[in-house]
């Protein structure tokens, strides 16, 4: 079991890293030939940075459009962020001080995250417009993350795994040493689902995470009159 999971972990990490790198490289290499920021838009790079920070921290656009989706989406994402940061304790020795600091918050954030996910799932099922646009994968993605969250919550609050052995196993993986992994079923499910999530990340809608940074309607400076903006393929068109 320890060896199987080690292989899966390495494979999933490789898929995640290289898959995302490939995708991001494609976004970088594909030109944005025209200035298309959704206006009113910032007129400077620092303004764009501020707009982007607002998008990824408080989900500004989503807040404008749907308060419920915003609420559940925000609870989920920021619960997830805290949970992920808390998980750093299993990969560091000694544990960084600020990871220690957020430990209690991180524990309860897992519940907040589940509440958000639950809300999103309920919306997807019961709002006719959202149901109409949902493919099976849209439900499965939510269920997958709910599965990860629920097993995590179980281990945090109900049936603890052998965390010392687990941490030793994870630290071992980081230096390419395969040690023994605890084998309780909840942990196995938790880790298997995480591995699955990592593997499908670069080929699924989870690409919204890098995508938001490359969205021309949000990341372009509104200065087309001041600065000529032209794509390489358009230059070729001109010389014809």
């Amino acid at each position, binding site marked *: 079991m320890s060896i199987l999971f080690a292989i899966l972990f390495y494979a999933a990490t490789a898929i995640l890293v290289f898959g995302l790198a490939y995708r991001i490289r494609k976004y970088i290499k594909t030109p944005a030939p025209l200035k298309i920021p959704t206006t009113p838009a910032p007129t400077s790079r620092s303004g764009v940075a501020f707009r982007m920070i607002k998008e990824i921290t408080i989900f500004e656009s989503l807040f404008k459009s749907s308060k419920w989706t915003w609420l559940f989406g925000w609870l989920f994402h920021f619960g997830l962020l805290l949970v992920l940061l808390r998980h750093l304790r299993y990969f560091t020795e000694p544990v960084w001080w600020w990871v220690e600091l957020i430990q209690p918050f991180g524990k309860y954030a897992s519940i907040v995250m589940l509440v958000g996910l639950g809300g999103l799932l309920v919306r997807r099922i019961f709002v006719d417009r959202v149901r109409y646009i949902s493919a099976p994968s849209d439900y499965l993605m939510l269920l997958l993350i709910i599965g990860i969250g629920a097993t995590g919550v179980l281990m945090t609050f109900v049936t603890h795994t052998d965390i010392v052995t687990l941490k030793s196993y994870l630290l071992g993986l980081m230096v390419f040493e395969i040690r023994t992994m605890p084998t309780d079923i909840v942990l196995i499910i938790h880790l298997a689902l995480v591995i699955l999530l990592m593997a499908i990340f670069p080929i699924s809608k989870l690409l919204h995470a890098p995508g938001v940074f490359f969205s021309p309607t949000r990341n372009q400076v509104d200065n087309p009159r*001041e600065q000529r903006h*032209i794509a390489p393929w358009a230059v070729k068109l001109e010389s014809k």
Partner: protein
Amino acid sequence: MAAAEFETPELREYPIIPKLQKGTMAHSKPFVAKEQFQTPLGYPGELVDNWKQVAIDKMGELTEKYRSLQVFLDSCVKCGACTDKCHYYLGTTDPKNMPVARQDLFRKVYRRYYTLAGKLVPKLVGAEDLTEEVLDDWYTYFHQCSQCRRCSVYCPYGIDTAEISMAAREVMDAVGKGQKYCNEIIGKAQTLGNNLGLPEPALIDTLEGLEEDIEDETGVQVKMPLDVKGAEVLLITPSADFFAEPHIDGLIGYAKVFHEAGISWTMSSYASEAANFGMFIGSYENMQKLALRIRKAAIDLGVKRIVFGECGHAWRVAYSFLNTLAGPFDFLDSNYPVPQHICEVTHGLIQEGKIKLDKSENDHMTLTYHDSCNVARASRMGDTAGGQFTIPRDIIKACCNNFYDMPEYSIKEGTYCCGGGGGLLTDDLIELRVKGAMPRMQALKHVTENNGVTHMAAICAICKSQFSKVFPYYDFTMDQIVSVHQLVSNAIVLTGQNDGKSDEEDSTDAEQAA
């Protein structure tokens, strides 16, 4: 094809999100372009035999040329934030008019042929083969998007359905299934210089007539110059300004402003069109051809500035794309932005006190202002973000005493499209146009009932034509839509004008006791 009977949507006191009803607009399709309109733009005259392959290849090509398309196709999480934002959805209740559902018509094919998951497990991820039914759906529903960008404001990733509908239209053109209205117009503008196909003599005739009208009314000789070399300003305005109501009153307004400010100006018979329908079909090449006519006219006439008249999508192409498509404009006076909007010019002159306005001339109206979608969400005026909202309003308020904004959700960046933008302003889509206007009509009704608003001002040729057409369906009258520069025209005090100016005006104009 006879126009089908349809019901005008009911206007409610407060907006609601309607329940979806499948297929209510499945029958709505514009006329397909015949060979004569396709060939000049470089597209096949009819559906090519291997259209599926051509379409799939074109789709791939476009994802490599446009980062927007690539990122938008990948990033949607189906959160549903956009689902109640499109005026066509609100007016028709057809679920395929929800922005994300419209995008998915294209995205499902992209997924099938260009993503691993779509190739392996299409059913699971909502991927679908390109079939005749899908192409048919594309033709139907990508001609129910006015590329107004309202959805892009509300999308957490800024996904703009306009980009997808432009790409879809480009793919359809490439396989020989273009739209008659747009492609015929682009052909005319590329050969004759304007969308209406008005030849130079007709333009001269019209402009002379207008000069006479202004002189009769005011006693002042205000010129409408055409092809005057060495003028300071080249005015590029939508050709609807030459003949349609209320557009023409706006044109008279621009002329009076230039006259009173002492700015020499001219229009061009070679580039007598501001609107650039190349954008509607997503064609960089065709859009560029039209833009280059403006550059050539500016060079040939030796002007120092380029100013655009009131037109929405045209201002997007002018403000956001002209420098890219036809720049650099280093031969023009660098003290002025290139191009400038007529509202920026007028606003500047008002602030400098170079033109005088008598607000009471517009006392017979209580006004509101319709932010045109592409001015609001795809361009700017002035130096600061949001100038496109304040500058036109400042002008209106300087020209009249009675102004009220419509409800906040329906103006500025949240403005509703008039229902006729993006290449849909054609009679074969009248049902769509009437239904798509519903959200704007509802907001207008609100201020007519609560604030006594009698007229709505706009700065877009399409908006003006669309509203004059659809107003009667909602119990408004055609003349309740006015040009912003029509208000300027009414209010401006020309040096040496007749004292008895108002005596010669229409009897409908309420008058101040002098």
